[in-house]
């Protein structure tokens, strides 16, 4: 290939020269060039090395279907790997580095691999490197594989994502698309036209000639002006990358180098696809050599960038005349050859020097070769459209409602027919019958090395090998040979590969079938999908209103149940010794009082005359007898009887309840309640409001809790006789309503005080100030976890599995005695619920001053035989500051009947012994919390 820039023509701006470097060589292009066109214009023939054999490769196509021209590109200190050369707009100062080549693309040391190609067929690594162990070879193969190099630490940029809608979306800005968009816009429809090139016009630029007396560029500009004048929208440099359910189309608008493209999710009432067609490569000996390229690419380079790809061109094409005429008019000498001729062979290694046809050599510097056209039907298939096999091409067949295909993508090649189709499609009318597309050629198994997939180095021999080894399913063929798995997603290679497989199997191409087309249509950066949801905005936790106060107390923060909560306090003082900080908080709570921010606890209000009966149905425990002013602990179960959530239910009045569920289960419990409210109940007599985030809760827990709360002035009689454990009272705090309940998750005397969020800071500060002289202080989540484990209280999800039932936790009463129906009733009566080997909650005590057990460690039998069998596992394990020994909770088969038994604990190959004890390790009578 001896590409050169013509003195006139094209869409480039010759007044804006741009300088860039390719493998250290200084090159000049112009504004309007792509990386690839600028290289070809300056005579660069070899732009890359192939993936497996490191063979020299030149440009094959001038847009997204080009499989070869990938570069690592640096500009202004930012590097991006695997930049697609044929679609990336050239910018001044770019530094291009060829991928898959060292030290340079001209002299690549790994090119020697090609000498051993007989030993490197498809799937060779599946066979050659299995003995003695694949992992011995894997690092070396990983180093050799791949294309560009990622520079570590380079940040991405946030991509703008937005949603939009329109009446009609036209994809493709060529003759068909522009005609359709203009007709629809002038008919008053809200039209959006998307065109992936920076300048619309499609094939009109390449083939030259005139439309309605205008050049292709002039005609395209006139159509765009008319569309906009009629209220339509035109988005150039924008690619439709996928079609999803209900006509949602993702549109990706290219951005300058190293900036994230923009994503538009367009919902269209109707979609017209005018995506055109690409040349199908002709399969013959040496067809991967630099200088062998798509005829349409040569025309497109000529029309858009004024680049003539060669001076002596050999043309192999089923319909060669228009191509030859255009190139000859540009100054090239063109010789036409029969693409169906036998024994075609390329001469030359890093550049074409000739074409052999049936043993006769013809001198040339460029070979333009195509076997026909491949309609671009990827988007059609994303939407569920079927394909018909007509004249050796897959063209759109039956399709979904609201989607139509026109122009070359439909197999239509006549301009008048295309424009008629476009006008009909624009108005939603039935399309005229499809004519027969131009006939194409299919490859034959042949001698020599002929490439089917240029990017993944798949040859005709590889297809034959796959057929011999019975990888005959089209999906197996793809995975075994990697056919069509590159950036072109099979646009160049699929039909040829399928046709070869069909011949090997003695079937037709439709019988072989096609692989599944999936979005995205072209490669897109991952940052496109992330949008701004990166860093702290990626799965951001909910934030407490008291977070500034916790930070002021130097709290370590962690995510607990979707909220960012204090883990422990005074982290600087206890730097590197968090255990000490946690132990101090535990002891302080047991001896004086701890003050906990319990705001995330669920506060779901259930109201209405049927609320009581409804909650009695939703809870496992009997709630029908709950009196106003009282609180009851209970479980919510799944229909299968497994524990879904535990918490307390408070009754504020006859028709007013508050469900205080686990912090992490608020959303789920809301859905659970809403689902049952609308099923079997009168929804007008029960209403459920989630008021969790409207209230802040400060819990004061410990022996001195009553003293502290009494000084806060919440307007409630706190005496034990007036306010017993498991009761709730409504008072006032600083002129705002306050709900005070006596429930305990620590085993200590506890008061949970809930106030509107705007009173939280006053309440928190007051509680700390009142409690400080007594020796109380803030209590974090880690200390709370130990306090509740000492008491044997469970955390649902940590101390339970998805199969744990309430009687496994020691709550069998309602199952045996509750007479009214409830959610989970049936599940608890099933055989599995009465299995004597069920995992049951127990405590574990280590022996003789041994360290604490590992959480997750298995409790096993048969360890002595060398084949231990698990009987359960450790669910919680801590060093108890209160008891000065380790404690643990576990789920153990038949655990409730095994008290006092010594069990074997297995963890990471180590065996230990622990004794089964009751889960509650402190104050089993409950005297402290009932004080």
């Amino acid at each position: 290939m001896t590409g050169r820039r013509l003195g006139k023509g094209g869409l480039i701006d010759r007044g804006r020269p741009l300088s860039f470097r390719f493998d250290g060589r200084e090159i000049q292009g112009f504004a309007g060039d792509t990386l690839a066109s600028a290289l070809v214009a300056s005579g660069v023939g070899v732009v890359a090395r192939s993936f497996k054999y490191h063979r020299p490769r030149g440009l094959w196509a001038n847009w997204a279907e080009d499989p070869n021209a990938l570069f690592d590109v640096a500009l202004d200190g930012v590097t991006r790997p695997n930049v697609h050369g044929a679609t990336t707009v050239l910018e001044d100062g770019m530094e291009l580095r060829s991928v898959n080549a060292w030290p340079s693309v001209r002299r690549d040391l790994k090119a020697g691999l090609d000498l051993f190609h007989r030993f490197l067929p498809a799937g060779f690594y599946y066979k050659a490197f299995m003995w003695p162990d694949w992992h011995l070879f894997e690092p070396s193969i990983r180093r050799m594989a791949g294309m560009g190099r990622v520079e570590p630490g380079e940040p991405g940029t946030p991509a703008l994502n937005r949603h939009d809608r329109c009446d009609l979306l036209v994809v493709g800005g060529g003759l068909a698309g522009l005609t359709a968009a203009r007709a629809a816009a002038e008919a008053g429809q809200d039209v959006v036209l998307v065109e992936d090139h920076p300048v619309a016009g499609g094939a009109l630029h390449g083939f030259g000639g005139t439309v309605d007396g205008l050049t292709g560029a002039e005609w395209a500009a006139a159509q765009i002006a008319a569309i906009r004048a009629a209220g339509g929208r035109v988005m150039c440099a924008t690619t439709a990358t996928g079609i999803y359910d209900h006509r949602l189309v993702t549109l990706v608008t290219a951005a300058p180098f190293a900036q994230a493209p923009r994503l538009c999710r367009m919902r269209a009432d109707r979609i017209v696809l005018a995506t055109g067609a690409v040349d199908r490569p002709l399969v013959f000996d040496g067809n991967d050599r630099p200088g062998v390229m798509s005829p349409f690419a040569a025309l497109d380079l000529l029309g858009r960038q004024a680049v003539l790809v060669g001076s002596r061109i050999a043309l192999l094409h089923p319909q060669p005349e228009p191509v030859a005429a255009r190139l000859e008019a540009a100054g090239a000498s063109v010789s036409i050859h029969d693409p169906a001729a036998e024994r075609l062979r390329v001469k030359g290694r890093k550049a074409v020097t000739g074409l052999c046809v049936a043993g006769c050599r013809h001198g040339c510097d460029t070979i333009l070769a195509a076997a026909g056209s491949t309609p671009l039907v990827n988007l059609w298939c994303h939407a569920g459209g079927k394909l018909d096999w007509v004249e050796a091409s897959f063209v759109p067949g039956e399709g979904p409602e609201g989607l139509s295909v026109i122009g070359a993508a439909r197999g239509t090649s006549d301009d008048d027919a295309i424009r008629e189709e476009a006008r009909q499609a624009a108005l939603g009318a039935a399309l005229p019958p499809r004519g027969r597309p131009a006939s194409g050629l299919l490859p034959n198994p042949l001698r020599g090395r002929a490439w089917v997939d240029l990017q993944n180095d798949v040859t005709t021999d590889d297809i034959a090998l796959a057929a011999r080894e019975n990888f005959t399913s089209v999906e197996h063929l793809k995975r075994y040979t990697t056919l069509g798995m590159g950036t072109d997603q099979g646009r160049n290679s699929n039909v040829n590969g399928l046709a070869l497989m069909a011949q090997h199997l003695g079937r037709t191409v439709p019988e072989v079938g096609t692989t599944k087309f999936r979005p995205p249509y072209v490669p897109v950066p991952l940052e496109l999908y992330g949008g701004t949801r990166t860093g702290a905005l990626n799965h951001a936790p909910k934030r407490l209103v008291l977070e500034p106060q916790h930070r002021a107390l130097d709290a370590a923060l962690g995510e607990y149940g979707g909220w960012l909560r204090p883990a422990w306090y005074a982290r600087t003082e206890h730097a590197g010794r968090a255990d000490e900080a946690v132990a101090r908080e535990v002891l302080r709570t047991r001896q004086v009082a701890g003050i906990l921010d319990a705001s995330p606890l669920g506060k779901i209000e259930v109201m209405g005359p049927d609320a009581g009966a409804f909650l009695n149905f939703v809870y496992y425990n009997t709630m029908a007898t709950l009196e106003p002013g009282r609180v009851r602990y209970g479980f919510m179960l799944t229909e299968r009887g497994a524990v879904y959530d535990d918490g307390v239910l408070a009754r504020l009045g006859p028709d007013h309840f508050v469900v205080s569920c686990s912090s992490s289960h608020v959303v789920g419990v809301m859905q659970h309640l809403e689902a049952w409210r609308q099923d079997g109940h009168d929804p007008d007599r029960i209403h459920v409001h989630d008021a969790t985030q409207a209230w802040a809760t400060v819990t004061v827990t410990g022996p001195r809790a009553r003293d502290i709360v009494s000084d806060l002035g919440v307007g409630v009689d706190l005496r034990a006789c007036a306010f017993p454990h498991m009761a709730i009272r409504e008072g006032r705090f600083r002129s705002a309503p306050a709900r005070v309940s006596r429930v305990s998750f620590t085993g200590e005397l506890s008061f949970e005080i809930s106030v509107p969020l705007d009173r939280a800071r006053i309440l928190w500060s007051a509680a700390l100030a009142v409690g400080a002289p007594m020796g109380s202080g803030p209590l974090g989540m880690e200390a709370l976890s130990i306090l509740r484990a000492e008491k044997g209280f469970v955390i649902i999800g940590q101390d339970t599995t998805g199969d744990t039932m309430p009687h496994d936790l020691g709550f069998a009463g309602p199952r045996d005695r509750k007479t009214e129906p409830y959610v989970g009733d049936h599940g608890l009566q099933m055989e599995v619920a009465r299995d004597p080997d069920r995992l049951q909650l127990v405590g574990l005590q280590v022996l003789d001053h041994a360290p604490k057990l590992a959480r997750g460690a298995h409790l096993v039998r048969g360890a002595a035989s060398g084949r231990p069998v698990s009987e359960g596992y450790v669910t919680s394990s801590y060093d108890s500051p209160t008891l000065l020994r380790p404690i643990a909770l576990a789920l153990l088969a038949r655990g409730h009947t095994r008290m006092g038994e010594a069990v074997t604990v297995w963890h990471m190959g180590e065996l230990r012994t622990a004794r089964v004890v009751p889960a509650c390790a402190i104050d089993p009578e409950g005297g402290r919390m009932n004080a």
Partner: protein
Amino acid sequence: MRDDADRWPAPSPADAMVLNGKAVSLRRVVPARQVLVSGERTAALTLVDLPRAAGWPEEAGDPPHALSLRRDRILVIDGPAMTAGWCADLGLAVSDVTCGLAVFEVTGPAAMTLLATGTEIALSEPSASVLRLWHGFEVMICRLAGDRFRIHTGAGRAEALWQTACAQARLLETPAP
């Protein structure tokens, strides 16, 4: 045990949540009262003495106003004081969620575009409910008038929503490629 205090920057104070741009401006507003009322729609509007509950994209006007969440639920902003609990006379459930919902006002020529960054929304696509998911957040989006909109979200999500909205607003201020 892990300390992630430095992974999440301290939340912005409510009064600092102001962003003024050419395309879009954002600020946090604090309504005096927000109340959920569930039950039959006519009875609910009678209770709060408002003529209608706005869906999307009806112009709700400046508060007091009511937003339609679903056929049997409205959110009343700056309406009359009401006793929380079950209102037996009208068969309505009332909960004061004044502090539970953070509210942001979005204005400017690109306000609709900002809303459309996070959800499929258009003035031409009406909905009887103002409830939506916006960038994954459960929100209520209402139109006060013209290009003035409000987003209500759970108080715990205020910081994340604010940062998300600011990030989107900054992207909108940068010219399209």
